[in-house]
């Protein structure tokens, strides 16, 4: 390549004139730069929308709390928000913004479960928060505490902003502020179908029987069936889990709502309140007794399960590790005739690994509660 001539920068000249019309030009190429909607938007931003620029503290500041002129509808800024004010979408009247747990309430739930060692069930009743939510709060606060210990950064400004924008359930020591309904029962998918089940008129067909029909389980044995002269269990006593189906198709038999309800002792409590009206001490004693009995029986069941698990194990301490030998059952039922079944321990033969295949879901897709 031939040598290039050096460029003398002093000989270069730049035109420095500014095109003023260019500066005034809109970036949009739309023929009508200001549409009607756009004009309305700016009118709103400078008119009624001005009050949203500096939102009221301790208020959700949804559109429906203000009138068309941008004035607050409720009397005074200190009055609590009504349901009307909690509708964020003015055209969707059915949507009401639900309260989230306040920071105080979250910490109180954690304290009662982890410090005072109360059961999730008890805390749920005391603070009016659903049991699953109590469990979730305890887990999340534990994670948060661990992150603090590890000096990891927390998204506190974000959390604070969210708590300012949404309605929250406060915690007060003097009175119980219920967060949500705690004794709700979700609709069981088995009961979605419509069933016609012929049965004799004389048969005492109760909720237990209906659950069995929905689960396609066999009829109760005669000694438990009223129609056959047996003594039936009352629906609320029918709490023993039962299974129906084999292998992959195995599922729980649907139990009556009385047995599945999260806080059955609250129903007993309500009954006591009606029966023993005025006798508050007795009502309270029965209530605490029921809770204690429940806690004891659960603890016993847990111990029994632990002991049964431990019975199958031999632990050998070798200093550095512990060898845990579990006694298992290897059977033809587990592996099947082809030896490819997965119910017995051990890696199977003749079954390729499919974990690298397309479409294999490796993360859990559902949470068992």
């Amino acid at each position, binding site marked *: 390549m031939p040598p290039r001539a050096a460029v003398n920068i002093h000989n270069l000249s730049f035109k420095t004139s500014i095109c003023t019309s260019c500066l005034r030009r809109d970036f949009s190429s739309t023929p009508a730069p200001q549409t009607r909607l756009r004009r309305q938007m700016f009118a709103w931003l400078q008119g009624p929308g001005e009050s949203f620029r500096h939102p009221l503290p301790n208020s959700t500041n949804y559109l429906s709390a203000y009138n068309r002129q941008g004035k607050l509808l409720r009397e005074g800024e200190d009055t609590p928000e009504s349901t009307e004010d909690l509708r964020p979408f003015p055209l969707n009247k059915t949507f009401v913004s639900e309260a989230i747990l306040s920071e105080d309430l979250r910490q109180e739930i954690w304290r009662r479960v982890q410090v005072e060692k109360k059961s999730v069930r008890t805390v749920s009743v005391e603070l009016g928060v659903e049991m699953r939510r109590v469990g979730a709060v305890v887990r999340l606060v534990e994670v948060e505490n661990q992150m603090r210990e590890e000096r990891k950064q927390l998204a506190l400004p974000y959390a604070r902003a969210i708590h300012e924008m949404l309605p929250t359930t406060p915690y007060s020591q003097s009175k119980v502020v219920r967060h949500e309904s705690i004794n709700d029962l979700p609709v069981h998918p088995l009961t979605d179908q419509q069933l016609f089940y012929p049965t004799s008129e004389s048969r005492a067909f109760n909720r237990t029987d209906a659950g069995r029909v929905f689960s396609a389980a066999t009829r109760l044995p005669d000694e438990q069936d009223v129609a056959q002269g047996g003594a039936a269990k009352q629906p609320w006593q029918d709490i023993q889990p039962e299974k129906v189906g084999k292998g992959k198709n195995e599922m729980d038999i649907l139990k009556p709502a009385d047995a599945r309800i999260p806080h059955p002792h609250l129903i007993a409590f309500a009954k006591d309140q009606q029966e023993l009206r005025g006798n508050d001490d007795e009502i309270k004693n029965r209530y605490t007794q029921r809770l204690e009995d429940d806690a004891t029986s659960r603890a016993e069941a847990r111990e029994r399960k632990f002991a049964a698990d431990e019975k199958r194990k031999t632990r050998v301490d070798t200093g550095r590790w512990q*060898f845990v030998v579990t006694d298992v059952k290897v059977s033809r039922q587990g592996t099947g005739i082809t030896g490819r079944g997965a119910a017995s321990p051990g890696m199977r033969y003749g079954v390729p690994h499919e974990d690298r295949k397309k479409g294999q879901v490796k993360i859990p897709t559902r949470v068992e509660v």
Partner: protein
Amino acid sequence: MVVKLRLARLSKRHQPFYNIVVAKDRSARDSKPMEVLGTFNPVPQTPLASQFQPTQDKKFKDIQLDITRTKYWLGVGAQPSEGVQGILGMLGLWEAKPGTMAARGSVGGAARMGGEKEAQIEGWEREREREREQEKEMERDAVV
């Protein structure tokens, strides 16, 4: 032909995991065996802490074994390989070689699988209670 109790390594690279199998001596290591008796995971596992057992024990190596079938195969003359001998030594089903893990083990021995099991479980529970009490005392001391 000799029938052996031995380990088969069917797992992937860098992920050791063994099937404890009954197989003919001359067959290939990972070929289809006469029977699978269990598994052996040599990677030490961290025990999960739970709400009811917050203290974690030391790491453990997980072995799953059908002891009834193993006894049967030993009874009809199956020969355990060296690796399987170690596992059986811990259970008292085979004489533990001196100097091996099985011989060093504090719980290993011949009488483990009998009626002593109950006493063993009670012993562990007592130990656990003692540990818990000690921890509580230590906590109290720390507070003081």
